[in-house]
C-alpha cells in the first residue's frame, strides 16, 4: 500500500511530457501549413454549420457537406500547395469572390445530396419491394398450383398484429 501513491505521479508526469510533445509537433506542423489553415478556416464554414445543425443525429450531414466543401476547395488548395504556399497566397484566395462561389457552391451541392438522397433511396426501395412481393406471390401461386391449397398458410407475426386487417386480407 505504501508504494502505490509513489507510482501515480510518475505516470502523470510521463503523460504530460507526451502531450507536450504532441502539442509541440502540432504547433510546428501548423506553423508549416498556416496558409492552408487560413484558407480552410474560411472555406469550411458550411461544414462547421452542417456539423452543428445535425449534432446528435449522426455525422452523415457533416461528412457529405464537408466532403463536397473540401472538393470545392480543391482547385484553390492544390494551387496553393503546389505554387505559392504562403499566407499571401492564402489571403489572395480568401479574398477571391469566385473562390467563395465555387467552395460554398460545392458545399451547397453537398447539402442538396444529403437532403435528396433518402427520398431517392426510399423510392428505389419501395420500387424493389413491390417487385419482390410480386415475385413472391407468383412463387406462392406456383406452389398452390403444384401442391394444392393445403400448402397455403397464414403468417401471424405477433399477437398484436392479429387484429391488423391487412394481415387478414393477405390470407
Amino acid at each position, binding site marked *: 500500500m505504501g508504494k502505490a501513491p509513489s507510482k501515480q505521479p510518475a505516470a502523470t508526469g510521463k503523460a504530460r511530457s507526451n502531450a507536450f510533445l504532441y502539442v509541440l509537433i502540432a504547433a510546428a506542423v501548423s506553423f508549416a501549413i498556416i496558409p492552408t489553415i487560413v484558407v480552410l478556416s474560411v472555406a469550411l464554414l458550411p461544414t462547421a454549420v452542417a456539423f452543428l445543425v445535425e449534432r446528435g443525429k449522426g455525422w452523415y450531414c457533416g461528412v*457529405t457537406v464537408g466532403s463536397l466543401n473540401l*472538393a470545392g476547395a480543391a482547385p484553390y488548395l492544390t494551387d496553393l500547395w503546389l505554387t505559392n504556399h504562403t499566407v499571401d497566397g492564402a489571403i489572395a484566395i480568401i479574398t477571391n469572390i469566385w473562390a467563395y462561389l465555387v467552395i460554398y457552391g460545392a458545399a451547397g451541392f453537398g447539402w442538396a445530396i444529403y437532403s435528396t438522397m433518402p427520398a431517392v433511396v*426510399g423510392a428505389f426501395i*419501395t420500387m424493389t419491394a413491390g417487385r*419482390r412481393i410480386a415475385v413472391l406471390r407468383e412463387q406462392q401461386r406456383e406452389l398452390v398450383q403444384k*401442391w394444392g391449397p393445403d*400448402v397455403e398458410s397464414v403468417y401471424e407475426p405477433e399477437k398484436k398484429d392479429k387484429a391488423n386487417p391487412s394481415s387478414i386480407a*393477405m390470407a
Partner: protein
Amino acid sequence: MAEVAQDVREAPARPGAVPASAEAAPPPAPPPPPKTNGNGAGAQAPRMPSAAAGSFIVVRDRYTIYCDRPIPALDMPNAQAFEVTDRKQEGRPLYALICKPEMLPRVSVMRVLKGLEIPHILHMVDWGVAEWPPIERKCVIVIYHRPMGGKLMDSLAGTAKRIPDHMFPKMVIKPLVEALTELGLKGITHRAIRPDNLYYMDEARTNIVLGDCVTSVPACDQPVVLEPIESGMCIPTARGSGTFADDMYALGATLLILAIGRNTLQGVPDAEIIRRKIKDGSYSTLVSDERMPVSLIECFRGLLTDDEEQRWKPANIDLWLAGKRLTPVQARAEAQAQRAFKFADQEFHSIRSLSYAMFVNWDKALNVIADGSLEIWIRRGLELNDLADAVASAIKNSRAMPGQQKDQEDITLCRVLMVLDPRSPVRIRDFRVSLEGFGNSLAVAMMSKQKLQPYTDFINRELWRHWVAAQTKYNADHSQWENVFKDLRNYLRDQNSGAGLERCVYELNEWMPCLSPLIADQYVMEVKGVLPALEAVSKTANTKMWPVDRHIAAFLRARYAKGVSAQIDAMNDPRPDRATIGMLSVLAIVQWRLGPEALFGLASWVGGLMGPVINAYHSRPKRKEIERELPKLIRKGNLAEIYNYLDNPEERQRDAEGFAWAKAEYAAAEKQAFDLEHGQVDRQESAIKSGQQSGAIAAVVIMLLTYTGFLVSKLF
C-alpha cells in the same frame, strides 16, 4: 365345396333350339341341353327369365334338372323337389331338392354323405350350387335317388297304413336303427326323423329309408311332438345338431306314431304338448288313450325316456330285437311339494312344471318373482334351500344390472327360469334358444331378414354365461361355448367393418353363404368365390358403393382371417384415403392369393372409387400422372398391380417430403411478403439512413476524385 361351385354349371334355356342329341331325351321331356360354356363357371352364364316354362339346368354336365317338373310329394318343408335325369345312366331314378334361399342347409353333412350309400338312408348322389331360373338366383341343389314307393305317411295330420305288429321290428325298427348307427359312426345326427320323412325305396314297399336331413338347419322341420322336451321348447331353428339321443327320441316318437297309425296329438298346441310331456312323461303323452301293441311297449318306453342318460341306445334295441328282456326304465322322480303353489289359475307341486308355466305366462310370472312368493314356496314348500338361494341370488344380481326396468324384469325372469330348470334352453319371452342352436338360428334370422335384436341381446346381456352358470352338471362343451360367446361379444362391441353381428353369424356357421346384398344371389360359401361373384355383378351394381361392404368384410375375416385382417383394419381407418386403399388391398390380396388372374369389371369398379387415394397425393402433377396411368392398369384387371401402383411407399414419401418443403417455402414467402407489405415505417427509416449513408459515401468519393484529379493535372 370349392370344386362343387366350379363344377356346377347351368344351361341357358333355349325353347326353340333342337340339340343334336334330342332323340336321347325321354319323350315328354324337353330336349337335352346345349353345351354350356367351357369355363365351368356358372356365374358367367346368363340368367334365365322366371317364366321360363320348359326350362332346365344341367349340373356337372350330367344331371338335367327340369324346372317345370316339380314333385310335390317329395317336397321338404324348406326345399322343393324336381325331376332329374342322369345323362350317363339313363333311366336312373333321381330327384333334386332345391333349397330355399332363406334357409341354411347342412353343407358339412352334405360333404360327408355325398356319394355314400349308407343302408336305409336316402342316397345322396350329388349336391352343389347352381343358378335356379325360377327364382333367378343361385341355390343349393341336392340330388337324391328317387324313392319309388312313396312316403310311409304323407303328413303328420294324416294316417299311416299300419304295419303288422310282428313285422314292425324287422321291417321298420331294425333298418332305421342300423341307419342311425351308421350316421352316428360318422359323427352325424339326422335330426329330421319323422313319419313323413320315411320312404319306401322300392315300389313293393319293403325297403324303408330315412329321408333328407340336409336341406334345413338341424331339427328345424321337426314338429314338437317328435322332439325331446328341451329341444321342443326351442324355436325350431335354434335346436342345434343335438345328440344321438335326440335322434333316438325322434325315432321312438316316429315309430310310435307309425305303430298307432296316426299322431294322437294332432291339433294340440305345442305348448300343451310340452306341458303334458313334462307332467306325464313323453311316452304317456304320445300314447294318450291309444292301445299300444304289447310287444312294442318296452322299446317305445326306452326310446321315449325323457332322461337322456337313460334313453335307449342302438345296443339296447339290438338286445331287445334279440329277445332279451331289459330292465324297465324308471323315470327319476322330481321333488314334489306338499303344499301346492298357485300360479295362473293352476296348482303346481313340482319345479319343472311350474317353470314351464311361468315361461308360458311370462307377465304373470314377473309378479310372483316381484312379491317373493316363489322363493318362499321353494324354501318352505319344497324345502330346497339351495335352489331358493340360487333364485334369490339370480333376482338380486339381475336387478343390480344397468338397463331399463322392463328389460331388467325380463332378464330376471329368464335367469330364474334357468335356475329352476337348467336343462331347458335360454328362454326370454318368445326367444328360446339352445347355445348350440344359436348360430343356426341367427343365420336363418339373417337370411330371412327377421328381427335380430333378440340375438344381439342374447350375446350382449350374457344370457349364455348365466345359462352355463346355472347348469348343475359339468359339461366340457359348455366351457367351449363360453369361450365362443366371449369372442362373439367382442365382435359385437366392435362397430367396424369385419366385426359386428355379421362376423358372429359367419364365425358360428362354417358354410354360411355371404349375405352381402351385392352377392347374396350368387350364394358364395367360400372366399375364393367372392371375387368372381363381385365381377359378375360389377356391370349392374351401383359402382359408387364400395364392393367390400360389412357382410363381405365379415365373411372374409371369418373365413380368411390370416390373409385379410390387416387389410380390413386399414379399411376401417377414419382417413378416407387410407380406408379406400385398405378396401383395395382387401380385394387385391384375395385376388393375388386365390385368383382369378383378371377381373376387368371389378378393377374398373374399384378404379372408379380411387378418388380419395389419388387426392391423397399432394402433388398435382402426380395426380395427373396417376389419372393417366390408372386406366391402363384397370384394363389389365389385376387389382394387386393397381394397389402396388397407388400405394407406392417411395412415391408417398417423396410426395410428403415435397409437400413439407412446399409448405415451408410458401410460409417463408408469406413471411417475406408480409414484411415487405407491412414494413412501411421501417422502410422510411431505412431509406433515410441508407440515403444519408450513400450520400456521404458519394461525397467522400467525389472529394477524393477531385483532389486526385487536380493534383495529378498540376503535377504532371
